[in-house]
């Protein structure tokens, strides 16, 4: 076991998979010589050469479209989108092409690609370097979406994604890249897609969340202990498909739930979680399903505004107190 950062875990996952399987290639803007603007692909160009680590033109739809085509011809491409904020030109290729090709060919074609994209606020990136985009892709049957938050999960899930037969959107919270460290085993492992993880056991309230907010929730949980409020932190890890079993098991135990996401509120991924629980666990709920989210605005640049945009420990603590006494 060695301590690694999230970005190191991601880099290692790609390097190891590329060594294991010659059909794995990487393409994107600045991923080659430069090693990626976040250095996620650092060293890959040197090790695997320009044939397998491809600096593409500035064209996100083209990047994903090329990856899709290569996957039709035996490759397992990993396409990097430099910032999730720039993924939207590729929406059509992802949702109308990659995600639908298995269905529209009755399984004759499949599209085993991974689209990696750094997302998330709190790093002074402003309106176009901070967005959460998961909800915009959450409504696409055929797609899988992964949002890891620890080095262990990041590596294991990326490996699983690369080996997966379906298109995967792999979202990396920029703020976890260098801030979050953790142990990673030396030997090869994967983390299964579609399985949530209880990051902290508790029995007062379940906090269902993912990405950077897992760490914020863990911080809040720490502080709430002394008040006798024990949060159970459910890290979804995969948001599509959702591990409803683990979420429900937790809520059946605590009977109260906070759905927490950094993304803007309306139409966020957490809305689906609320909807599922409000339908399936109605008799188990001892209080309203509380959502803590960013407000419905673009992500602002000025530090004062960004500060009030991103949900923080205090929001969770206050909501938990209220809900605990409901």
């Amino acid at each position, binding site marked *: 076991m060695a301590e690694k950062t999230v970005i190191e875990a991601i880099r290692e996952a790609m390097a190891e998979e590329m060594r294991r399987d010659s059909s794995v290639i990487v393409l994107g803007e600045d991923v080659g010589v430069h090693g990626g603007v976040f250095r996620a692909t650092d060293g890959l160009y040197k090790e695997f050469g320009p044939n397998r680590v491809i600096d593409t033109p500035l064209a996100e*739809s*083209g990047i994903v479209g*090329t990856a899709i*085509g*290569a996957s*039709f*011809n035996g490759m397992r491409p990993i396409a990097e989108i430099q910032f999730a904020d720039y993924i939207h030109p590729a929406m*059509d290729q992802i949702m*109308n092409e990659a995600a639908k090709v298995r269905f*529209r060919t009755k399984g004759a074609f499949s599209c085993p690609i991974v689209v990696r994209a750094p997302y998330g606020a709190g790093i002074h990136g402003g309106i176009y370097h901070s967005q959460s985009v998961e909800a915009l892709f959450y409504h696409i049957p055929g797609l899988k979406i992964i949002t890891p938050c620890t080095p262990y999960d990041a590596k294991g899930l990326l490996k699983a994604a690369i080996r997966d037969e379906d298109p995967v959107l792999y979202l990396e919270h920029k703020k976890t890249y260098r801030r979050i460290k953790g142990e990673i085993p030396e030997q090869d492992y994967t983390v299964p897609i579609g399985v949530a993880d209880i990051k902290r056991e508790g029995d007062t309230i379940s906090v269902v969340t993912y990405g950077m907010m897992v760490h914020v929730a863990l911080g809040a949980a720490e502080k709430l202990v002394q008040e006798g409020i024990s949060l159970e932190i459910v890290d979804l890890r995969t948001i599509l498909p959702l591990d409803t079993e683990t979420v429900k098991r937790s809520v059946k135990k605590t009977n109260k739930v906070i759905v927490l996401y950094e993304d803007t509120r309306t139409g966020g991924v957490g809305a689906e979680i609320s909807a599922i629980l409000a339908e399936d666990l109605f008799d188990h709920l001892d209080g309203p399903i509380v959502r803590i989210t960013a407000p419905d605005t673009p992500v602002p640049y000025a530090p004062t505004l960004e500060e009030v945009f991103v949900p923080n420990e205090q929001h969770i603590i206050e909501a938990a107190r209220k809900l605990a006494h409901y």
Partner: protein
Amino acid sequence: MDSAEETAVVESHQNSRHAELGLSDETVVEMYYRLVQARTVDEKMWTLHRQGKIHFIISCRGQEGIQIGSAFALRRGEDFVMPYYRDTGVALVLGMTPRDLMLSVFAREADPASGGRQMPGHFGYPRLRIITGSSPVATQLPQAAGVALASKIKGEAAVTAVYFGDGATSKGDWHEGLNFAGIHKLPVVFICENNGYAISVPQNKQMAIRDIADRAAGYGFPGIIVDGNDVLASYTVTKQAVQRALKGDGPTFIEAKTFRVAPHSSDDDDRRYRSREEVEEWKRRDPIERFKRYLEEVNLLDDSLDQRIREMVLEEVNEAVDFAEKSPLPSREDLMKYVYYNS
């Protein structure tokens, strides 16, 4: 008469145009057979639509020249082919059968392209290296670059031929696909069936230039104009492009000037946007009639052979319709299948 590969010269007429191209007599007759087959399949589909038996069809009529000519220059099962929705002719030459196509218009479970999940006109067959196509226009362009990129990485001697219309050239994806292929000198043959319209929008509202082929220079590879109603010319430029690609010299852009003489689809009424004179004028330039005249000139076709071919094709197509009509629809229980690998 069943393989596009038999292009070796067998007893060809000396000095004939096709002999000079290295095409055997047998092959050019087969080309004619394919032209008639495509046209017959198309006509049958219109009939089925008028009879209310099927919901939708999209037509190859008038564009069979470039479709059959270019497809004969591709190596079946070796080269990758990405037809667009109008490419009935391409699909037939590359190995899809009238049965396959009829199963598709009837949306049957046995439809090899989609099991009735997708509208007709969306060809696909992994074994034949016919890459599945979707409806959103031009998405296949970057995908074609990707297929060819994979060939290059694997060191595989395969060309990717990708088809699209004049309207498709306006899309961002078109630009991004050509640009990528140019940069990496990928083995792609871009085949634009310029029929002068994108549904109702005429070429001069689609672009400010006369020859789309001129754009190829902006991507660093040659752009060739061909008369798309001339089967042999279409064959020739495609063959050259394939050879160029196999030599590692990169992509070629082919603009085939042609015309869709039918409405855009069974939902369209083309009298709303173009004159009958224009359509009639192009009907006189029909690629099939023209090729027929050629074969008659070189004494490879007479009325009786023509008759035989037409009967053969019709029988085959009628049989395909019967077969498809009797074939079962997808079963309701299977809706959720094929969304994910293990669903």
